């Protein structure tokens, strides 16, 4: 067995060497993203096929990273052996840009005639540092209110509309909660996990700003901020109409929704293929988030294709980024219903008319804030998570939880 493996390996090596000798003038690029769903992998593979036809002299090796993508990419960048082109999440983009780990794309964009104005400005700004572009957003997502149509019909409640207010959501969540006395069958109105990303839109809807003008002081402890935390946690604490996923034996909100243990959940477009593949019989709709006392608010998630500063073939790497974020490819991604396009030209694509679920998630972008908290984002996110956790687990008062959290955040910001 071992000998056979050895022989095969040698044969492969020799073949590889021979191939290398033939294609000496070929440029090889490594492309990495996180391990996504099979469908999404297929999309990347298809895009690379088209790219190979367009640029036969560039060979692209697609090497997805399975676990802990951010950690692995950071260490690879430090060791100067990062992939040439890879995903950068807006959440941890800043330290990479400020420390010169990424290639400024502007000169290459100019050469091929790609303009910054081709892309949604807000999204692009997440990958801009000191006026230079360090990544092209490949797609984006916001949060929508997913609702289970069957449960609404049973309770004779009209489906959510964009005109819903905070009060409507609370009322409906209460009505949709059905406690039958068997913990494996109880049903709840909504899933509100210990997760700052799900809580962030309510801060915007309540009118709470993240930072003051100096950027060193967090403003979440304002009456508006406390109001948002109080609202988010009152479902579970006061109305008993919300659960966290683990309480209903689910791994995450989308899972709880798919298992029909909750009637509503706040998720992004990623939930659509997840439901279609795992819970095909759940009939659901998606609506914009309700209006808060200060108006509409949402949060957007986006990921760029960026090029490592240490990349040896920047010209070719840019061609790949341009292709992957190009009009044709984004159009294809949109039409499969995976994620939203970042190109302005696709904003009024007919697809949205025929697909109200994606349209609802797309609309959220108009009033969304980016999902990031700057340089120390990870720590700040953990502090916010704990403020929710303190209320859920220790019944702490929202004003105290928020004040403590902001004191900690200010400490982090002054480091």
């Amino acid at each position: 067995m071992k000998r056979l493996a050895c022989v095969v390996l040698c044969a492969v090596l020799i073949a590889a060497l021979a191939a290398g000798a033939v294609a000496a003038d070929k440029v090889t690029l490594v492309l990495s993203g996180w391990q996504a769903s099979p469908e999404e992998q297929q999309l990347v593979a298809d895009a690379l096929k088209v790219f190979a036809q367009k640029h036969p002299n560039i060979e692209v090796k697609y090497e997805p990273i399975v676990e802990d993508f951010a950690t692995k990419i950071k260490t690879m960048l430090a060791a100067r052996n990062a992939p040439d082109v890879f995903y950068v999440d807006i959440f941890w983009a800043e330290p990479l840009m400020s420390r010169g780990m990424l290639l400024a794309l502007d000169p290459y964009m100019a050469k091929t005639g790609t303009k910054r104005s081709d892309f949604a400005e807000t999204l692009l700004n997440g990958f801009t540092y000191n006026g230079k572009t360090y990544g092209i957003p490949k797609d984006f997502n916001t949060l929508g209110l997913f609702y289970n149509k069957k449960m609404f019909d049973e309770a004779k409640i009209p489906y959510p509309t964009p005109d819903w207010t905070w009060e409507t959501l609370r009322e409906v969540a209460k009505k949709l909660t059905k406690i039958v006395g068997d913990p494996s069958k109880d049903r709840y109105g909504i899933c509100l996990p210990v997760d700052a990303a799900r809580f962030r839109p309510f801060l915007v809807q309540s009118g709470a700003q993240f930072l003051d003008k100096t950027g060193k002081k967090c403003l979440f402890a304002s009456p508006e901020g406390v109001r948002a935390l109080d609202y988010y946690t009152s479902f579970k604490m006061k109305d008993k109409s919300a659960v966290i996923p683990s309480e209903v034996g689910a791994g995450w909100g989308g899972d709880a929704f798919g298992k029909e243990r909750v009637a509503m959940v706040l998720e992004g477009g990623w939930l659509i293929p997840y439901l279609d593949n795992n819970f095909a019989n759940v009939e659901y709709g998606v609506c914009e988030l309700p209006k808060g006392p200060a108006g509409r608010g949402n949060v957007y998630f986006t990921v760029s294709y960026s090029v490592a500063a240490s990349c040896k073939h920047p010209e070719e790497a840019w061609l790949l980024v341009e292709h992957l974020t190009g009009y044709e490819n984004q159009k294809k991604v949109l039409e499969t219903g995976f994620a939203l396009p970042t190109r302005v030209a696709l904003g009024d694509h007919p697809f949205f008319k025929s697909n109200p679920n994606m349209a609802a998630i797309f609309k959220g972008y108009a009033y969304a804030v980016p999902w990031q908290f700057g340089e120390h984002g990870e720590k700040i996110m953990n502090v916010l998570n704990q403020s929710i956790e303190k209320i859920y687990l220790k019944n702490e008062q929202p004003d105290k939880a928020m004040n403590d959290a902001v004191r900690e955040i200010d400490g982090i910001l002054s480091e």
Partner: protein
Amino acid sequence: MNPLPGTQSNAQPGSAWSRAAARLRKEKVSEAITGYLFVAPFLLTIGTFVFLAAVYALYLSFHKYDLFTPPEFVGLANYRRLLADRDLRIALRNVVIYAAGVVPIQTAVALFLAVLANQRLKLRGFFRSAYYVPCITSSVASSIIFMWLYYKQGIINYILSLLRLPSDTDWLGNPSTALPAIMTLVIWTTSAYFMVVFLAALQDIPVSVCEASRIDGASTWQTFRHVTLPLLRPSIFLVVVLGTIGCMQVFDQVYIMTRGGPLKSTMSIVYLVYTEAFGDLKFGYGAAMAFALFAVIFVLTLIQRRLLDIRIEY
């Protein structure tokens, strides 16, 4: 004591004695070279990946280092920051509670299993292997399996509900049960490892010693309590020290099962080092924290040495 071969004898140079001594010396040297050659691969890997890495970490702990820009010397600033770090105090408290819970139980269970596995029963080999399986299972796999047991609607609560006991605890989601839940898992996975240590020690005890005590009229329990146990003292010391070091460095289970939550109740020092370094890009500070942990472990080991006072009794 015989004089060591190769040491200077009072023989005349050129005599047969000194020639023999020279030959012995040569043999000794070549034997040593052979020996070192055999362990070279191991020494090189350990030297590079453990010793050199530790030295470099010590160097980093006096620097500000974010992985991307060159390290910048800051003297003792990182160590000064440690003293004011609230999270570190929480983590230290957690691992001390954790070690105080895990080490005694795991030592007792390991000893009990070793005595069992040392009996002359049928299927002895099967039982030994069965006990040992948890310990060669990957910690990631066993953590995930135990997560299923601990879920609010997991198997443990299901069994409790059959027994008509309160069964709505979210074992890993509750600050007062999350750490004990991880302790239970670790006791289950590591006891068998230390069982092997005790098993080896039990088989080293001369049969004649036990027989003598039986002839003197000691019961089985008395023999175990006053003969076997004192003779096991060195291996008990070893197990307690290794167990404590392992507990102070707990990471995998925390990372997989709770991420230090809920409310920092399972935050361990190594998990904190990981989040500071990789999450917040403070590698210098993380290194300083790791060395603080080293100091704590070192002091604990010294104390244990004092308390257990190892003497080999035969």
